[in-house]
């Protein structure tokens, strides 16, 4: 029984060292990211996917001179948040 325990410990230690070394070797021989990119750029142009291009955006008409009559000016409103008071506000008869 004791021999079995010793054997198991040796076997675990040996396989751990072997696995560590195997992983090290595999990583050392795998292509690095930079190497991968340079490889891909070195490929023939017919093999690489074309980069999509966007049509140029129309310039902003900040002066409002274009289509002023056709399009109503957009209206934006800021959602004002309520204010809190401990007492009711005092109202004023402005009149209309």
């Amino acid at each position, binding site marked *: 029984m004791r021999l079995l325990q010793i054997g198991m410990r040796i076997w675990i230690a040996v396989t751990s060292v072997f696995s560590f070394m195997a992983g090290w070797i595999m990583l050392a021989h795998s292509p690095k990211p930079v190497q991968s990119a340079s490889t891909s750029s070195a490929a023939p142009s017919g093999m690489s996917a074309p980069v999509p291009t966007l049509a140029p955006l129309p310039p902003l008409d900040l002066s409002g001179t274009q289509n002023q009559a056709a399009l109503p000016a957009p209206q934006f409103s800021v959602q004002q948040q*309520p*204010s809190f008071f*401990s007492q*009711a*506000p005092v109202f004023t*008869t402005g*009149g*209309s």
Partner: protein
Amino acid sequence: MQTLEFRAMNTDVLLAAEGIYAAELGLQVARRFIEVSELRFSRFLPESELSQLNIAAGSWRMVSTDLLEMLQLSLAYHKETDGLFDPSILPDLKRLGYDRTMDAIRAKRGAVAPGLPRAPRPSFRDIEIDAANRRVRLQPGMEIDLGGFAKGWIVKKAAELLSRDASACAVSAGGDILFIGRPGQDGDWQVNIEDPQNPSAALAGLKVGPGAVATSSIAKRSWHQDGLQRHHLIDPRTGEPAKTSWLSVTVMSPDILTAEVYAKALLIGGAGEADHLASRRSDLNYIAIDTNGALNSSMAAEDLIYEHGFTYQQ
């Protein structure tokens, strides 16, 4: 108490609500209602329902239940005030230069086009209302400006919306204020009567309970035409700005539309017709300010005044 202030209907609007659920949502819903209603009933927007009705004068036109309600109530008040409240004075207002918003007139320093001779216009009593079919026919040449009346109606509906989630609330829009409930359960609402000649000062402070306070003033919306000072309160009997010794009238009533109508009618009628007019409504009180800054009030209104003459702290 939570409050929300913004500008709508060419005036300053203040919403206030008390109660754990009142909060933001109720205030924002009421605000949205006011903004949408303005789009529907403004005479300055050609696409509004009111403008479309004016354009269709002479023929029958379907209207919304809200506009129908306002027109029916307007007609009833028109008869009750012997015509002093008249929403069909729009042709006179336009002739006198009030043909765009007051903000737009002020932007041109109050200058408007020269006046034209007054043309006869049909009486508001001749408006035809077919309530069953929700149709209205304005007589040819008739144009309606619901103006302050629509504002009062909008304030009323907005306050009712707000009160669904609030134990107490108030809606104020350019002189029309409606209070529902009492602040702090049994408190009073405070209202300052603004000095028409000095908006930074108050001539009196009132403490009121639930109900409405509406004010009409000839000092707020005025402009110049042909070298003459004009204001928007037209005397329907003459078609000209009312010649009155009063600068403003504030009316307290349980109903905001009654307060709004009578504030206008009392101001046009002036001191000579005030008691006669006010006696038609037992639940109505008024405070009028004359050109000397003196207060003229009905008996019960004096009991509401707790403070006289003060200037606002800056």
